[in-house]
């Protein structure tokens, strides 16, 4: 994706989000009492100011993107995003990118794992959930040794469990393993 295309995407997306917020989300999501006398004190005043700001920025970025596409030059004076934002990682020679399809597949799988963790945690508990998640993550990230993967996946969640429950006195749910407590 070129810089111009990216700016068009960001600008268009922000504008669409702002319009959605102004016309749909604020009327549904913000309860405005009938007793409001001063407009600036209304609960929806501040969210509308923010949506206005978002829309204005969206338009600016969109126009920048369209202008850059017209000129056939980059929209902004910055490098392409493949490596990151202002605090971006500087990749070493040791890393290579997967193909776009491969990246999408892996990242969608990662998102799915996170939500699966959230949905299964009430049943499995945070400790067992973290064990499974850590094991999956180490394998996907290329740790070849099962011993290392399993070691990290078991030891760290258990250590953290004891730290939070015994030292910080913060209860950590164990789900179906509650009997082990």
């Amino acid at each position, binding site marked *: 994706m070129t810089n111009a295309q990216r700016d068009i995407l960001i600008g268009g997306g922000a504008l669409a989000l702002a319009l959605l917020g102004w016309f749909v989300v604020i009327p549904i999501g913000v309860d405005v009492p009938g007793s409001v006398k001063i407009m600036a004190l209304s609960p929806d005043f501040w*969210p509308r100011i923010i949506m206005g700001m978002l829309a204005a920025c969206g338009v600016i970025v969109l126009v920048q993107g369209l202008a850059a596409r017209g000129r056939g030059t980059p929209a902004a004076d910055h490098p392409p995003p493949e490596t990151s934002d202002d605090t971006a990682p500087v990749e070493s020679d040791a890393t290579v990118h997967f193909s776009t399809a491969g990246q999408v597949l892996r990242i969608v799988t990662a998102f799915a794992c996170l939500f699966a963790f959230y949905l299964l945690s009430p049943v499995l508990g945070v400790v067992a959930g973290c064990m499974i998640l850590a094991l999956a993550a180490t394998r996907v990230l290329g740790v070849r040794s099962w011993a290392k993967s399993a070691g990290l996946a078991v030891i760290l969640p258990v250590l953290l469990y004891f730290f939070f429950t015994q030292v910080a006195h913060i209860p950590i749910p164990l789900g179906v393993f509650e009997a082990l407590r």
Partner: protein
Amino acid sequence: MTADLIAQAFQLFLSVDNLLAVFIGVLIGTTIGAIPGMTTPMGVALVLPFTFTMQPVTGILLLLGVYKGGLYGGSITAILIKAPGTPAASCTVLDGFPMAQKGEARKALDMALYASCFADFVSNLSLILFTGLLATFALRFGPPEFFTLIVFSLTIIAGVSGDSLAKGILSASLGLVLATIGLDIVYGTNRFVFGEVELMAGLSFIPVLIGLFALPEILNQFTIKIEQRAATGQLGALGASFQDFKRCFKSILRGSLIGVVLGAIPGIGGSPSAFLSYSEAKRTSKNPDNFGKGEVEGVAAAEAGNNGVAGATMIPLLALGVPGDVITAVILGAFMIHGLRPGPVMFEQNLSLIYAIFMGIMLSSAYLFVIGKLSIRTISKIANIPNNMLYPAVLVLCIYGAYAINTNLFDVLVMFVVGILGFIMLRLDIPAAPFLIAFILGPLLEDNFRQALLMGQGDASIFFRNEICIAFWSLTALSVFFMIKNHIQTKRRKSAAGT
């Protein structure tokens, strides 16, 4: 009379218990600060019950040690794994993490420590010397003054927006939107709650913070094939030299003073101070383009601003009995448990106790240096762990941290959702720092805006009611002027370089 008081204070302070209490406090604070999700207020609150049976000075010094250690400790993981241990350390991420990736983690950690210790020392000195003066100034702050101060603080967004100011403000708008979730402060009605009880109190800082900074980096690893350990994960052999310290000294001193002034104003805290100090350092630097890419001066400025508030937040507490933030509110509780009430009366009746606390506070700066040096060698070993082992471990740490804040799985979900948003922002080159600044300052801005309007019965002239408001508006106008000027100059410079 004064000599007698100082002698009494020495008598009160010079005991093994007190010397140990400050040391243990700083150690606990540094460790807690270095764990993402464990906040300094949480650490102080956890230690508080242990102080009940101690002498008042010992107990209060233990809590102050935790406070000071926590402020520094947050920078360790901010630099090493981009997961700030405290909200105030999130500014340190901007240059600290890129330095770690360039193999200069030790240099960044050293500079963070030197800047922290120096700023802490300056803050302690100011606590001792200027308590009365600054407390009187802080007392004059009402909602209109706070509002103008925060508007001025928000101009720092320009400093962390990278090359596109529009994208920076866009990012800040997203942060402001998230900050509006919860109950309305004036009418108590729902805003973006959609029937979800968990959203009524708004989104917690820590899950948003972890989600925005740590999780996108972890998710990004899933798009990279790691063949071997990345060289950027090395701690680095070289630490910060005296020359580095000398080069950054101006920013460290400025950051310390910013921290002192903002710390003395109740309710401001370390985050705005760190960001303001960073922004000023960038604005006045000869190499502003290096900021955000691993500039050691950026780390120094952020940490000086962050730690400069440590002693100063005690000014309104000791002089007036007004807690400046959550931590000093807990410490106020500790005073009261021991039958003491900070304020003018305590200055008349327990002056020797206050002097003894001052001595302990000064000692804590020295302990911070020693413990900081040791922690760089021990805690920072996590930088040598291969990325494909480190990131899954950080993921687990983030989950525990997000959960532990309110013992609520909903916060873990918030962290995941913000993490995915942060990842999309990362890939689209939208800066994350303005989002976080706006998320932290947004509620303060809105609350003070509406409270001021309530005070003025809808009349906007209340925002210009005195010289403090006018001074902050003038500073904001100046800041915007220089921002636009710099932007135009940079554009011209770049187009000249291109032709």
